[in-house]
């Protein structure tokens, strides 16, 4: 099977009070084409850092990252995006003056019509006509912003899309919608791949494979049947909402 992403002996550390603090340690993994992978693990385990290393926002101390067998370790964020790597921020960025439709058009990389832009918003459960002309500024709530972030990433139609904790800041009602978004993506995935950083059991449930990251190291990988039993009840997986069926 063709490998969408291959990470080889990756190391990343930051300076902490004059000392090197290792965040990612000798990490190697592969994400094949056409699969939905979820990376989970305790807070501070290096998950978000790994997502940023893949997108090029952070640079590794050593090791290599291959995208479709091409070494992209030294490649800029822009070049990786153009090559086909999409990234949904855990904490989306606000812009004064840039409207939702501007952002979706920039993401699509072409001057798409309002109808198409609206379709991406509808997918994430936003009433498109209410949002399309709004500025991506502080007038939007955290949940609205997060859904717009996901809509922009959908509009990019990247070969590999990395979602960094897509559930963060999303309310219970929208969470169901989010699961549907990923399920739809999952059905239409064909030769694309999705990598989701998440703690949510229901997101783990739709994964082809789950990767567990702890203290910057890969400590487990396998199907949900193999991985979930060991996670449930640990801090690595939390139910969507205890005792409430949605």
């Amino acid at each position: 099977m063709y490998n969408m992403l291959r990470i080889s002996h990756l190391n990343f550390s930051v300076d902490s009070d004059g000392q090197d603090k290792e965040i990612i340690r000798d990490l190697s993994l592969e994400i094949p084409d056409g699969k939905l992978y979820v990376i989970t693990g305790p807070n501070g385990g290096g998950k978000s850092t790994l997502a940023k290393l893949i997108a090029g926002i952070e640079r590794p101390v050593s090791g290599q990252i291959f995208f479709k067998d091409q070494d992209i370790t030294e490649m800029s964020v822009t070049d990786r995006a153009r090559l086909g790597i999409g990234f949904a921020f855990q904490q989306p960025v606000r812009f004064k003056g840039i409207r939702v439709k501007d952002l979706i058009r920039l993401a699509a990389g072409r001057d798409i019509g309002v109808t198409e832009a609206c379709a991406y918003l509808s997918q994430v459960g936003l009433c498109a006509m209410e949002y399309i002309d709004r500025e991506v500024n502080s007038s939007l709530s955290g949940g609205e912003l997060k859904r717009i972030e996901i809509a922009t990433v959908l509009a990019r139609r990247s070969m590999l899309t990395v979602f960094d904790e897509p559930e963060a800041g999303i309310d219970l009602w929208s969470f169901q919608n989010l699961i549907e978004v990923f399920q739809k993506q999952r059905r239409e995935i064909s030769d694309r791949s999705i990598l989701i950083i998440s703690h949510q059991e229901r997101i783990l449930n739709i994964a082809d494979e789950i990767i567990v990251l702890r203290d910057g190291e890969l400590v487990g990988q396998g199907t949900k049947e193999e991985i979930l039993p060991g996670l449930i009840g640990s801090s690595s997986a939390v139910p969507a909402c205890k005792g409430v069926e949605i």
Partner: protein
Amino acid sequence: MKLNDTERDLLKEIADLTELPTGAYNIRSNSRAVGRQSSANIDIIPKEGVSGIDIFIKPGTIGETVHIPVVMTESGLKEKVYNDFFIGEGADVEIVAGCGINNCGAHDSQHDGIHRFYVGRNARVRYAEKHYGSGDGSGKRLLNPVTEVYMDEDSYAEMEMVQIKGVDDTTRTTVAELKEGAKLVVRERLMTHDEQKADSIYSVSLNGDGSSADIVSRGVARDNSYQKLDLKIIGNAVCKGHTECDSIIMDNGRILAVPALEANSVEASLVHEAAIGKIAGEQLTKLMTLGLTAAEAEEQIINGFLR
């Protein structure tokens, strides 16, 4: 009306005009009126003794527009022009002004437009003013607009004042006095680059009970340019005032923001906000993850900010 290509380009830039506007207009090029038209409800009359025009808008005039763009293409021209707007009671109109200077010569070109607005009771006016400079001559392009707004009871004025590009030196002065129930909204956009200098000074007096003002100035100072934003609201009654200076600095740009509030009534409620900073790194990163280069991302962020 005969205009050359440069004049046409300037008109397009400052007033979005590619042909003669409908409604009343006065088009001034190189210190001469090259086109003027009054309408049934709007009279444009040249002043005597000084350059400029009086614009009389009849009470109750609804939905009409007045265009008064100015273009200058002769290097070395200097002029001071007085335009007075008398907006009748209950009128609801739109006024489009603006000045474009193309200076390809070695001498400085300067247009100082003094605009006075007398906004009648219950009248509403939307005013758009765009300033723009072009041309590669060594002569400077100078613009010193003065805007005075006198607002009667329950009137409303919305002013969009934009300096897009190419103005070497400017002092922009805006003075407003508001009576009971009047409301003033100002949206200023300022972009300076190269060695340019821009001063923008506001003094808004809220004199009547129930009056309010919302003044927002957004600026971008690039290269070695300098901006001074001096926004003052004076509350003399039961009133609400808000000023905001929001600026991006780039390269070696410098900005001085001096927001000022003066409350002379215990019932005055006044707020100012000021923020200056470079483009946030995370904004650039986000747009780069969408495939834009750093330079393209920067341009999008600035265009949005100044939109």
